């Protein structure tokens, strides 16, 4: 039994009561990372000195503030490596950013730091968050703690595994097409993809700016809600962050789902669901219905075009966002180059992995004159239709439920040779990014011993409803404290 198995509220109580110090808790977390993570590969780098320094400061604060310290004070967390951390190398899982030490921290990191969290280190991810399995990291593969021969899901695989294996109390990830919800589903943790604009993107190394959103991964819905409350809210440094009050995530959590109308999108059940996943979903529906939810069928007719639109829009933005990685400031450079063009081509070819190069190429093509209207413009039209689908559905229901992914975690290497199969992994998650709405993945059950998540989608700024539904399921299925085999490997 490790202290890291405790929910944040209980851990915080112990810290305040002096039953354990933040330094002791941090030492335990760092020791666990050393022992457990070698087999998992969740962390790209640990920051023990920073962590212990923050823990000591948290202990002083816990002592001096006589019980008034923030609930996250002294709680060990970790960040996906796409989040800039001042003074700590940040690579986004890419060779081209090897050695990049940002002179500033992301707004979310600053906000959590101000509350006294303990930063354990940086978490592995697919290169620039492009991938669904964490196999695209330039540095290492992150393994699934439920079965080390299976993927953790991506791109926030490290963030999910760190929580699943109880290496950190909560982590931050980023979700552009499902990158928080998918690994949350694959590893049996809670993952929140907030409404676009709910959380500041300042300091998030951009994948696709109009789709990216930072969110928490945690053991319990309440833990996720606590972290979301801390990081959400308008930021003057991100013009796309929205001016909306950040309340009610926690207050409405335990209101239950009695009378709540939950929609099941017909099209989401027609994507070739794994039978085990379908069975878990059907049980979840029954469970929620049993606690008073009203289940309705809804239609999201544009679903079949969403994947194509996504794979035009996201690469288009990637091709531009990654242009700064040109060998002048970032990347190894290419001193032997005869021409500037030569230098750019070599730096970028050598600095980026195959999947990143594929998407940069796709996006460059889609934005080129003569192709812009056929690809980018049409994709934007589909995007509008996807959003309208959701608007219509949310006129009839309070939230939408579906499996988070068509399958449970697949085997390492199973889809690396087939990009289209890999892209299809996100079919149920990416429409929410196109529409900019909120979503949560919550553990719902197991299929052949592997975790399966339920996705709850809410309307724009509808996080409170999503979390409320997720909490209801969590309370009924009681899976949150079930540990994966590899988390138990520690002495």
């Amino acid at each position, binding site marked *: 039994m490790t202290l890291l198995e405790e929910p944040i509220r209980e851990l915080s109580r112990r810290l305040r009561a002096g039953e354990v110090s933040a330094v002791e808790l941090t030492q335990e977390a760092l020791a666990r990372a050393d022992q457990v993570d070698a087999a998992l590969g969740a962390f790209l780098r640990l920051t023990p000195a920073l962590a212990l320094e923050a823990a000591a400061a948290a202990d002083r604060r816990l002592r001096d503030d006589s019980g008034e310290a923030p609930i996250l004070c002294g709680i060990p967390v970790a960040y996906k490596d796409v989040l*800039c951390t001042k003074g700590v190398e940040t690579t986004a899982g890419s060779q081209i950013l090897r050695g990049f030490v940002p002179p500033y921290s992301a707004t979310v990191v600053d906000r959590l730091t101000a509350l006294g969290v303990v930063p354990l280190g940086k978490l592995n991810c697919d290169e620039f968050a492009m991938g669904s399995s964490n196999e695209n990291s330039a540095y290492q593969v992150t393994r699934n703690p439920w079965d080390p021969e299976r993927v953790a899901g991506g791109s926030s695989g490290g963030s999910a595994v760190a929580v699943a294996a109880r290496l950190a109390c909560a982590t931050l990830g980023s979700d552009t097409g499902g990158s928080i919800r998918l690994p949350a589903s694959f590893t049996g943790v809670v993952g929140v993809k907030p409404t676009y604009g709910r959380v500041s993107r300042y300091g998030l*190394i*951009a994948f696709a*700016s109009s789709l990216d959103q930072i969110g928490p991964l945690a053991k319990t819905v309440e833990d996720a809600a606590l972290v979301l409350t801390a990081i959400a809210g308008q930021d003057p440094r991100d013009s796309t962050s929205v001016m909306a009050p950040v309340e009610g995530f926690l207050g409405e959590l335990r209101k239950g789902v009695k009378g709540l109308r939950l929609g099941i999108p017909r099209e989401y059940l027609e994507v070739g669901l794994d039978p085990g996943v379908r069975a878990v979903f059907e049980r979840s529906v029954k469970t929620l219905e049993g606690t008073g939810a009203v289940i309705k069928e809804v239609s999201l007719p544009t679903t079949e075009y969403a994947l194509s639109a996504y794979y035009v829009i996201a690469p288009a*933005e990637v091709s531009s966002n990654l242009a700064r990685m040109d060998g002048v400031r970032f990347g190894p450079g290419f001193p032997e180059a005869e021409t500037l063009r030569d230098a750019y081509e070599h730096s970028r070819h050598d600095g980026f992995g195959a999947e990143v190069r594929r998407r940069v190429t796709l996006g460059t093509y889609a934005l080129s004159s003569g192709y812009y209207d056929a690809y980018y413009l049409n994709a934007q039209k589909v995007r509008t239709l996807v959003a309208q689908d959701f608007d219509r559905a949310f006129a009839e229901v309070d939230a939408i439920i579906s499996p988070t992914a068509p399958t449970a975690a697949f085997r390492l290497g199973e889809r690396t040779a087939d990009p289209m199969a890999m892209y299809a992994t996100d079919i149920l998650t990416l429409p929410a990014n196109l529409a900019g709405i909120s979503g949560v993945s919550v553990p719902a059950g197991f299929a052949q011993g592997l975790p399966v998540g339920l996705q709850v989608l809410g309307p724009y700024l509808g996080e409170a409803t999503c979390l409320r539904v997720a909490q209801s399921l969590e309370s009924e299925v009681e899976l949150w404290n079930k540990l994966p085999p590899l988390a138990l490997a520690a002495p």
Partner: protein
Amino acid sequence: MSPEAQSPWEAVIGLEVHAQLLTKSKMFCGCRADYLGLPPNTNTCPVCLGLPGALPVINAEGIRLTLRTALALNCEIPEFTKFDRKNYFYPDLPKGYQISQYDLPLSLNGGLEFEADGKAVRGGITRVHLEEDTGTLHHAGEIQNSAFSLVDLNRAGVPLMEIVGEPDLRSPAEARAYLVALRQLLIYIGVNDGNMEEGSLRCDANISLRPAGADALGVKVEIKNMNSFRSVLRALEYETVRQREVLDSGGTLSQETRGWSELEQRTVSQRSKEEAQEYRYFPEPDLPPLLISRAQVEAVRAGLPELPAARRGRFQSQYGLADEQALLLTARPADSQYFEEVVSRGVTPQLAANWQLGDLQGLCNAANQEVEKCRISPKALAELLQMVQSQEVTGKVAKEVLARAFETGASPAEMIRDQGLGQVSDVDEIGALVDRVLVDKAKAASDFQAGNDRALDSLVGAVMAMSKGRAKAEIVNRLFRERLPRPGG
């Protein structure tokens, strides 16, 4: 012979002007917009360095100054506008794209009225949009063979307004006059400092030739790298001749970009149409579109100062100045302000104009100084000119005092009082001098009495010399006439 036959080709010219805005901070971050003279890469932050994760935030003052320009150029201001990314690779562009505006600019369809060769011309304005400036590169020697290049990002992100002109200009001289008028306007409305040498105002030109009277346009050549009025004129003159020679000899022109070489005084091909850049514009996802309210437009319009042409007209009607003087006194806002302050202190407009454009401007030119920065304040000039008006000092003495005060910074009026340089009108004091001259120049006195008018000039001159020019000439004249009565006079 018809004029067409004399000159079969007509030049069609349009200018693209880039103007850095006089905002305090850069367009999308808090760094200073005034970057000149700072050590390299010190005026930077994560945003303008283009560090991963950094995001732009729109500088509202940049929007306001662009709207101000657009309204001064009679442009339409659409209610909806947005920023786009212009993607290309170059080491002075840290993000690999420039935040600019593509299909929905802040303003469009305006015009600039100006004079060229005494004739009124209107140059259409296609659009005025906003973008960010790039950094600067410092090559070790010439770019072609330098061992390395250094990047300085102090300038990166400075607000840059692009004013795209219609191809309405018909000669290099007309293009120059357009640019002069546009620069004057930008300085008037306080959006740009007009410094072409430092590059805060930059100009590119498109030029083609077509048979005079034809409607269709010829093959267009873009000319870059002209950093003075003179180089704009020279480059366009050179290019006109070059294109005419190609066409006259039966050749064809190719669409291309050419650079003006100041050293060689010619244009040099830089890039052909086939090598044209593919910018892959798309909407900037990090910035929400902007809705420009009509109230905002009207507020900016209400804050517009008097524009050069209106002020020139007013100076003629209100102050009764000649066209040339009105033109000179409205060349720069500082000139007009100086003049109006002198006049507001009770100096007649004509006297104020004569002195400001005459003696004071002469002194300023010799010292290579601008009038508003010289040591003669409008107040000091007004005090001096009031003494001239009330004949407390002679014009001659006033000029000398002004020249000395220009050097020392002393008050001319105080100099006159302290050094007793004021005009003498005391009859007894002047009478004593007159009496002495009558003794010294008895011959001239009798000549005058005998009817020689010119003898009086010599007598008066002698008194003026003795009084060092201070004696009031009228009194001197009167006293001589009283003391030397002519028979029957």
